[in-house]
């Protein structure tokens, strides 16, 4: 599944360094502000539009003077929590993708690479299999625990094998652990119908019908992951030059790796626990971000966060509007619309500028 770029500096890494030397370009700050506006617009759309065609005027009323009417129930009870969930998921996956690609220096790296999605899925299935009932409140904690255990396992295997946490062994261990966990998941869901039902619901990433309590459960993890990602950004620029070069620049490579890994795990676990595995965002968002703000992680990480949010909210709004009185899950919209979009972007730009 995964290819890993050879750990040799390429001209693009030099570009990242040159970017940094130029200092905080006004242009890139302007771009980030533009992305903030884009996020605000998609968030507003996410509150304004839905499969229930509430009039705009009623939406405003429901926001300003919440009453006991249908519009208030829909706007306050469904759309606002769902928008917040979309913001959390988009921010987490966008940033996790940027850190993952920076850490592994692999343009195809995806936040699921460390076995996080597979671990979360298995934990949810085991929960149903052992405890009997699927409880959305419990699912979140199980998914978080599963994601953490899986990524710690991947990291330990790598560290035990090679002594360092270098990208290639990490990716290999991640792929192996993911395959193993997926096999266990298949084994359980084939043997137990309730587990299959829970898994089937969980495995298509969606923001719909999630318990509002999910948000407060995952937000602390998401915030911790975001803070670690921002702390990791200078180190990511150095790691982009290769481990040896980074070390000679005074970078503590092990600390940088652990910080990045912890960030990816917390972010992906939070997003996965909140909405199930949502593909594509973590892969494509960093590429879009890199195309407009360049390779320096000081800009790349906030840009990935904002683009991630706008993409998830935008796709969710589209999914709500194309399903008639039903809806299409955000994970499916992202895959269907996002795939061709990614191909178009890939054809126009050199995406391997890591």
């Amino acid at each position, binding site marked *: 599944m995964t290819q890993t770029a050879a750990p040799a500096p390429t001209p693009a890494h030099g570009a990242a360094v040159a970017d940094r030397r130029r200092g905080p370009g006004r242009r890139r700050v302007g771009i980030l502000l533009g992305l903030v506006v884009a996020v605000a617009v998609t968030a507003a759309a996410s509150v304004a539009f*839905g*499969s*229930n065609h509430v009039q705009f005027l009623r939406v405003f009323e429901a926001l300003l003077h919440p009453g006991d009417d*249908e519009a208030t*129930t*829909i706007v*306050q*009870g*469904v*759309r606002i929590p769902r928008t917040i969930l979309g913001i959390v998921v988009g921010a987490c996956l966008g940033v996790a993708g940027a850190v993952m690609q920076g850490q592994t220096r692999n343009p195809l790296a995806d936040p699921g690479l460390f076995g996080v999605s597979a671990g979360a899925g298995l934990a949810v299935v085991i929960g149903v299999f052992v405890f009997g009932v699927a409880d*959305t409140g419990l699912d979140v904690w199980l998914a978080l625990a599963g994601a953490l255990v899986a990524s710690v396992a991947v990291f330990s295997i790598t560290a035990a094998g090679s002594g360092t946490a270098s990208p290639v062994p990490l990716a290999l261990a991640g792929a192996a652990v993911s395959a193993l966990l997926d096999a266990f998941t298949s084994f359980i*869901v*084939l*043997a*137990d*119908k*309730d587990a*299959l*039902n829970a898994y089937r*619901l969980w495995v*298509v990433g*969606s923001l*719909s*019908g*999630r*318990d509002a309590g999910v948000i407060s459960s995952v937000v602390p993890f998401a915030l911790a992951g975001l803070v670690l990602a921002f702390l990791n950004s200078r180190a990511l620029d150095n790691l982009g030059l290769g481990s040896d070069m980074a070390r000679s620049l005074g970078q503590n490579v092990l600390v940088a790796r652990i910080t990045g890994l912890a960030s990816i795990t917390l972010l992906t676990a939070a997003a996965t626990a909140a909405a199930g595995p949502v593909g594509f965002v973590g892969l494509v968002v960093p590429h879009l971000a890199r195309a407009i703000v360049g390779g320096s992680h000081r800009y790349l990480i906030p840009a990935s966060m904002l683009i991630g949010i706008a993409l998830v909210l935008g796709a969710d709004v589209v999914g*709500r509007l194309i*399903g*008639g*009185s*039903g*809806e299409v*899950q955000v994970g499916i919209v992202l895959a269907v619309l996002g795939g061709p979009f990614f191909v178009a972007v890939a054809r126009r730009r050199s995406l391997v500028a890591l």
Partner: protein
Amino acid sequence: MKRIATALAVVAAAALALSGCSATSGDSTGTATTATWSFTDDLGKTVTLDHRPTKIVGQGETVVSLMNYGITPVGTFGSFDITKDARFEKLDTKGITQVGTEYGSFDLEKLAALQPDLIVADVYPVDAKGTIDKAQPDFGFSDLAQMKQVEAIAPIVTIVMGGDGADVISSIVKLSSALGAEAGTIATAKKAFDTASAKLQSAAEESKVKVATVYADADGYYVVKAAEDPALDLYADLGVDFVKPTPKGYYWGIYSWENAGKAGGDVILLNQSGYQKKELAAQPTLAKTAAITSDQVYRWLSAGLDYVGQAGYMTELAGYLAESKVVTS
């Protein structure tokens, strides 16, 4: 018109099959070796064997009906585990081998080891007109190739699970009789069914509640179009007033959670899988609906389309209707 034509064809086929049976096996209980057994199923396919099948493997939701008429299969397949299914609660499932408990999963070696004489399957129409898509396999098979593999082990007869509930019931009676169910057993069950029908009819008449039959999960709120479910169609004929979902589509009217409050109904009959009562109440748009606030949520069993199964669920449903009140305007 088409439905009548189909029904006539089924009756004609049944008559043919019965005459075929009686001609050869009516008086030959002792000399089974020379007797032949023949059955024409709902799809018009005729299976002929050199003896009446005794080792039967069937799809779980049809098998439950055969068992209610006293025919015990050697194996089952389908989308659930019969030892954990409420429809099998009162039946003895010991000694029945499950060759698959998930949709499309078959342990072919296990199936072959059972040396079945006959496989009993069922199929659902793909639209409201009752069209059977010949390019699709029967229910519970992953594809036609898998169905062929199973058919190589033993011939398949198929029950059509669509149209009028009464038609499905009589087609299952026909198959059960051909497989050796005693006329007395069926007659007794029919009597209980008639009693339950009368009970449901009077309960429906008195309560006047509107009923929504529902499956729900994170994706949304799915309300059954009663006319397109054979069992619900049967209850509707007895006067149960089902809501008519407005979203387009066959069988389900699909509401997103934003729209779930529009589906209506004084009473909710809830599928045993997916969201349960507590989870429905956690959805803001549904939490305020009268059916939820007045706690009129009951189970929807999808009982087998046989006199025993239906008598049981109709009595249960009559009880639900009797204790429910009209809470929507």
